[in-house]
C-alpha cells in the first residue's frame, strides 16, 4: 500500500459516502419547498404536516451531507497537494466561489428554517426553504463546474510551471460541466422523488394516513416521471460529448478493444483486461455504439488498444458501473410511467407500492455508479490529458493516510448507520410523531 493508492481509496470512499446524502438534500429540499408553498397558498393543513414530516427526514440527511462535505474541500490540500499547487489557480477559485456564493446561504438559512417557525411569517418561512433549496443546488452547480474542469480542462495556459487561468468564462461555461450539471441535478431530484414515493408506499401499504401519503406520492410521481425522462435524454448528449472529449472513457464504458466502424453494443459482455479482449460477448446490436457516440450507425469508434496501456482507465469497473447506471436509468421512466397509469388506484395495486418501496435505494445506486464512471473512467488522469493522478498526490507519510483512511471508514460507517437508522425510524413513525 502506498500513499497514492490509500489517498485514492480515501477520496473514493469519502466522495461516494458524501454523495449518498447530497442527492437527497438537493431533491428533497425542493420537494419540501413545494409542500410548504402549497400550504401557504391553500392553507391546507395536510401540506403543513407534509412539510414538517418530510422536512424532518430532510434535516437528518442534510446534517450528514453537510459534515461529510467539509472534509472533501480540505482533502485536495491534505492528500493532493501537488495537484492543488499545479491547478489551484483555476480550480481553487471554483471551490472558493462555491463557499462564498452558495454554501454560506444554505448553511445560514437552514438554521433560520429550523428555528424560525414562530419568528417568521408563513410566507417568509417558505421563502427561506426555497432559498435553502436554491443555494444547495447552486452549491452543487459550482462543485460540478470544478469537476467538469478536471474532465475537460479549458480556459487555462501553462505559465510559471503551472496551469494558470486565461479565460474565466470558458471555465464557467465549460460544455462538460454544463452537461454534468444537467445530468447530476435532475438525477438528484429523481432520487428525492423516489425517496418520497417509496416511504409513502410503505404507509399506503399499511393504509395509514392515506390522504397524506397519496398526496406525497403523487408529488413524488410528477417529479420522478419528468426527471427520469429528462435524465435519459440528457444522458445521450452527455455520452456524445464524452465520445468527443474523452475517447478512452467511452471505450472503457463499453469495453471496446478494437477500433471499429459501425461498432455494436453487446447485451452481455465481460471485459478481460489482461488479454485485452472481452471474455464473453453475446447479443450484438450492430452499430448501436457508433450511434450512441456520434448519432451515426456507421461512425468509427476508437478501441482501447489504440491507446497506450498507461493511458487506459480500469476497464472492468468502468464498464460495470456504466452498465448498472444505464439499466437503472431505463428502469426509472418505465416504473414512473406505470405509476402515472395507476395514479388514482394506488391502494388497489399493492404490488406496485411494494415495488416502489424497494426501489428507494436504486436512484442512489445509479448516482454512485455514474460518479464512478465519471471519475474512474477519467483515470489515469486527475485532469484529463493534463495531469496524471499519480503525479498529483501529496509527499506525505503513508502511516498518516492509513490512519485517516481507517478513521474515515470507522466514523463514516457509524455516521451512515446512525443517519439511516434515524431516517428509517422517523419515516416509519409517520407524520404524527413530528406534528
Amino acid at each position, binding site marked *: 500500500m502506498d500513499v497514492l493508492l490509500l489517498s485514492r481509496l480515501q477520496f473514493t470512499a469519502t466522495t461516494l459516502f458524501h454523495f449518498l446524502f447530497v442527492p437527497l438534500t438537493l431533491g428533497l429540499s425542493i420537494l419540501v419547498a413545494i409542500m410548504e408553498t402549497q400550504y401557504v397558498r391553500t392553507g391546507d393543513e395536510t401540506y403543513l404536516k407534509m412539510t414538517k414530516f418530510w422536512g424532518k427526514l430532510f434535516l437528518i440527511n442534510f446534517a450528514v451531507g453537510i459534515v461529510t462535505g*467539509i472534509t472533501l474541500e480540505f482533502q485536495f490540500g491534505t492528500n493532493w497537494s501537488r495537484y492543488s499547487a499545479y491547478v489551484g489557480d483555476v480550480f481553487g477559485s471554483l471551490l472558493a466561489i462555491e*463557499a*462564498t456564493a452558495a454554501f454560506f446561504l444554505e448553511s445560514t438559512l437552514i438554521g433560520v428554517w429550523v428555528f424560525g417557525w414562530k419568528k417568521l411569517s408563513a410566507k417568509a418561512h417558505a421563502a427561506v426553504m426555497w432559498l435553502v433549496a436554491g443555494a444547495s443546488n447552486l452549491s452543487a452547480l459550482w462543485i460540478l463546474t470544478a469537476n467538469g474542469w478536471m474532465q475537460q480542462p479549458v480556459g487555462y495556459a501553462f505559465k510559471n510551471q503551472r496551469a494558470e487561468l486565461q479565460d474565466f468564462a470558458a471555465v464557467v461555461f465549460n460544455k462538460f460541466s454544463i452537461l454534468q450539471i444537467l445530468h447530476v441535478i435532475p438525477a438528484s431530484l429523481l432520487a428525492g422523488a423516489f425517496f418520497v414515493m417509496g416511504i409513502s408506499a410503505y404507509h399506503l401499504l399499511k393504509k395509514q394516513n392515506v390522504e397524506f401519503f397519496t398526496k406525497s406520492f403523487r408529488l413524488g410521481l410528477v417529479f420522478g416521471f419528468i426527471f427520469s425522462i429528462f435524465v435519459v435524454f440528457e444522458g445521450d448528449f452527455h455520452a456524445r460529448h464524452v465520445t468527443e472529449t474523452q475517447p478512452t472513457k467511452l471505450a472503457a464504458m463499453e469495453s471496446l478493444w478494437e477500433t471499429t466502424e459501425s461498432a455494436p453494443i453487446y447485451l452481455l459482455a465481460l471485459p478481460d483486461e489482461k488479454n485485452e479482449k472481452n471474455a464473453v460477448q453475446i447479443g450484438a446490436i450492430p452499430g448501436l455504439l457508433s450511434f450512441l457516440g456520434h448519432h451515426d450507425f456507421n461512425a468509427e469508434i476508437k478501441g482501447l488498444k489504440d491507446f497506450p496501456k498507461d493511458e487506459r482507465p480500469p476497464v472492468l469497473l468502468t464498464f460495470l458501473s456504466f452498465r448498472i447506471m444505464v439499466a437503472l436509468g431505463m428502469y426509472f421512466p418505465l416504473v414512473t410511467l406505470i405509476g402515472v397509469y395507476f395514479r388514482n388506484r394506488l391502494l388497489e395495486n399493492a404490488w406496485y407500492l411494494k415495488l416502489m418501496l424497494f426501489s428507494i435505494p436504486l436512484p442512489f445506486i445509479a448516482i454512485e455508479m455514474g460518479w464512478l464512471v465519471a471519475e474512474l473512467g477519467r483515470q489515469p488522469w486527475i485532469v484529463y490529458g493534463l495531469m496524471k493522478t499519480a503525479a498529483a498526490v501529496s509527499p506525505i507519510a503513508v502511516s498518516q*493516510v492509513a490512519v485517516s483512511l481507517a478513521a474515515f471508514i470507522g466514523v463514516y460507517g457509524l455516521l451512515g448507520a446512525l443517519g439511516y437508522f434515524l431516517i428509517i425510524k422517523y419515516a416509519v413513525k409517520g407524520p404524527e410523531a413530528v406534528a
Partner: protein
Amino acid sequence: MVLESIWFFLWGLLWAVYFMTDGFDLGIGSLLPILGKSEADKKVMINSTGPLWDGNEVWLLTAGGVTFAAFPKVYAVMFSSLYSALMLILFALIVRGVAFEFRGKIDSPQWRKIWDACVFVGSIAPAVLFGVAFANIFRGIPIDADGVYQGSLFTLLNPYGLLGGILFLLLFLVHGALWLSIKSEGDLQQRAMATAHKLWPVELGFAVIFLVASLFATRLYDNYLAYPVLFIIILLAVAGLLGIKFFLAKKALFKAWFASALTIVAAVFYGVIGLYPDMFPSNIDAAYSLTAHNSASSDLTLKIMLVVVIVFVPLVLIYQAWTYQLFKGKVKQDDMAY
C-alpha cells in the same frame, strides 16, 4: 504585488471572522460538561448556538477555499504538512455537527450522554488544535525546499505551540461563556457569568505570556519594530481584554462579548501582521518560506476572486447579521429545535 498583499490581509480577515463567530460555539461546547448541570441547562446551551453555528462554520470553509484560490501553494503545503492536525480538527467538527442534529432524536439519557461527549470533544479539540497550528505557523514549520514537511504531529506539540493551544482555548471559553450569559437566564446565567469572571485573569495571564514568548520563539515582532505604529493592534487586543472585565463588571453582557470578539480579531491580526509577507514560514531555511508573493495565484484569478469577495462577503455579513437579529434574546422553550 499590491493585489497579493490585499489578499494576504483578506486571508487573515477570514480566519479572524471564523474564530470570532465559531469561537463562541466552540467555547460553549467545551463548557457543556461544566456548566450543563441539568438537561434543561444543556438544552439552553446547545440551542443558544443552534440557529447560528452552521453558518459560522462556513467561515472556515471560506478561509480554506480562499487559501486554495488565492494562494494555492500555501493551501497545498499547509494542509499536507499539517495533515494529522487538520484531520483531527475535521473529524471533531464532523462529530460536533451531527451531535447537534442527532442528540434530541431519541429520548434516552444514554443516547444524549454519547452526543454530549461528542459536542464536548468536537468543540474543545478544534479550539486547542487551531491554536497549536497557528502558533506553529508563527514559529515556523520544518518544510524543505520542495515544501515537504520534515516532521510529525508531535513536532507541533512544542511548548510554544501548546501555549498557542491554551490561549485559543481560553479566548473561546471566555467568548462562549459571555455568549451563554447573553442567551440564558437565572442560575445558568449566573454560573456562565461567574465562569467568565474566573477565566478572565487566566486569559489575560496567558495572553501576556504568549506575547512575551513570541519575542523569543518567533520573528513576529520584526514588522512591529520596523513600523511601530503597528503596535496599535496589540493595544487593541489589550483594550479588548480589559473591556471584557470592565463591561462584565457592569453586567453589560453584549458589550463584554463584543470586547471579546475584538480581542479575538486583534489576536489573529497580531499574528498575521507579524507574519507578513510570510504565510507558511520554514524554520529550516527562510528561503523555503511560502509568502504572499511566491505562492499567490495569477493576477487574473486574484482579481476575479476579489470581485467575488467584494460582492458576496458583505452580502453574507448582511444576512448573517439579520439571522443574529432574528434570534436575539434569551433562549425560550419555544426556540429549542434541538
